[in-house]
């Protein structure tokens, strides 16, 4: 392949790029070839060493890709707005805090200012709005790591949205408050706190590690919270079908929670607080070692439809049943 053939083919493969960008690439290779020839290099050999135009273009296109199939990122404020009706929201993020907040009306929207090593992609398909953010070259940019406090993804959910939300990130916290009514909510992070308050949902699944989970004033059918090395605090939450709280090496505190199936498990951490209910209606099983307990190890009667399981070790259990004021 000679110079002109190569450059023409490369230009064709770069058709998805805008004219300016495409021009830059062609100029670069044309210059490279000229400099090479000037230095006594063989034109054919040089061109061959560049690789196939298809592969060169693939790499360049991949670099410049910020795929927007339906949502359009606005240059000024980096708002990514859903253009179609949304039934499900998926946020797939890395190393970045996530804040989920309600808006009275309008579309589902993500606000995010990508840093230099963030790559963002948005898609909408079959009512599923997906926002993906990933980080490049994390290891060699420690200073970006540490200046990321201000850096977060903000997801605005309108009151009218009653669909499912699945959001995950890593090494960062997740916060959601005042969201109205959702169906399934799944939140996952690591090395970060999860803090949720004031919303209603069908099922709630919140998971993290090395971070506290704090839930306050939530209502739904069932709720599972899981962390490690982090405390769990649940207050004024009602999940009749199940309230499962799991951690280890940390304490757990509940207050004014209500469920028909309580499942609290920890190790090396106390489990304390008040739950609504009449203990006689619950099949109670509890266990701890090296700690006192206000609950019997086993108190089960036939016909009991509700259950309470509380397990920890090297710590006390202090759970009391309160009659719920109607």
């Amino acid at each position: 392949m000679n110079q002109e053939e190569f450059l023409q083919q490369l230009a064709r493969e770069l058709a998805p790029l805008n004219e300016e960008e495409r021009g830059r690439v062609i100029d670069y290779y044309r210059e490279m070839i000229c400099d090479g020839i000037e230095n006594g290099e063989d034109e054919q050999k040089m061109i061959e060493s560049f690789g196939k135009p298809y592969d060169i273009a693939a790499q360049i296109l991949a670099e410049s890709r910020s795929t927007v199939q339906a949502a359009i990122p606005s240059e000024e404020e980096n708002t990514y707005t859903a253009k179609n009706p949304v039934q499900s929201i998926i946020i797939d993020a890395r190393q970045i805090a996530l804040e989920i907040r309600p808006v009275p009306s309008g579309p589902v929207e993500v606000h995010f200012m990508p840093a230099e090593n963030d790559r963002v992609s948005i898609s909408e398909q079959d009512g599923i709005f997906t926002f993906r953010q990933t980080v490049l070259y994390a290891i060699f940019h420690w200073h970006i790591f540490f200046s990321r406090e201000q850096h977060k993804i903000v997801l605005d959910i309108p009151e009218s949205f009653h669909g499912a939300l699945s959001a995950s990130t890593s090494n960062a916290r997740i916060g959601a408050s005042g969201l109205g009514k959702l169906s399934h909510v799944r939140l996952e992070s690591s090395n970060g706190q999860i803090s949720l308050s004031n919303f209603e949902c069908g099922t709630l699944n919140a998971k993290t590690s090395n971070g506290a989970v704090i839930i306050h004033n939530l209502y739904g059918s069932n709720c599972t919270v899981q962390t490690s090395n982090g405390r769990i605090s649940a207050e004024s939450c009602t999940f009749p079908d199940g309230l499962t709280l799991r951690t280890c090496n940390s304490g757990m505190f509940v207050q004014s929670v209500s469920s028909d199936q309580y499942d609290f498990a920890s190790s090396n951490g106390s489990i304390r607080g008040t739950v609504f209910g009449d203990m006689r209606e619950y099949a109670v099983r509890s266990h701890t070692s090296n700690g006192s307990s206000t609950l019997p190890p086993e108190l089960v009667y036939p016909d009991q439809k509700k259950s309470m399981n509380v397990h920890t070790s090297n710590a006390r259990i202090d759970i009391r049943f309160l009659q719920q004021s109607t």
Partner: protein
Amino acid sequence: MDTQRKKGVLEICVLALLQREPSYGYRIVRDISPYIEVSESTLYPILRRLEAGDCVSTFSQEHNGRLRKYYRIEPQGKEKVRQFLSEAEEMRRIYQFVEEESK
């Protein structure tokens, strides 16, 4: 070296080179090659990203009847090199640790 890491390191090498004086594509490839594997095609996205991130700026100079594009380092680029060097001590410790543990 895995691709992602290599890209990060190449960026720093290009910046370090440009600290001395501005340079152009062909020469950058030639000057860096002894130290790390780099091809013309690998270099383009790196130069483009550095320019987009304001780490380098470009200017054109006439050479043998054609215009040659030169890259010049900017303050942001110099800062990146500084950051990299300040991390070098920590990386050295980590390498030592991994080496020790792998004996």
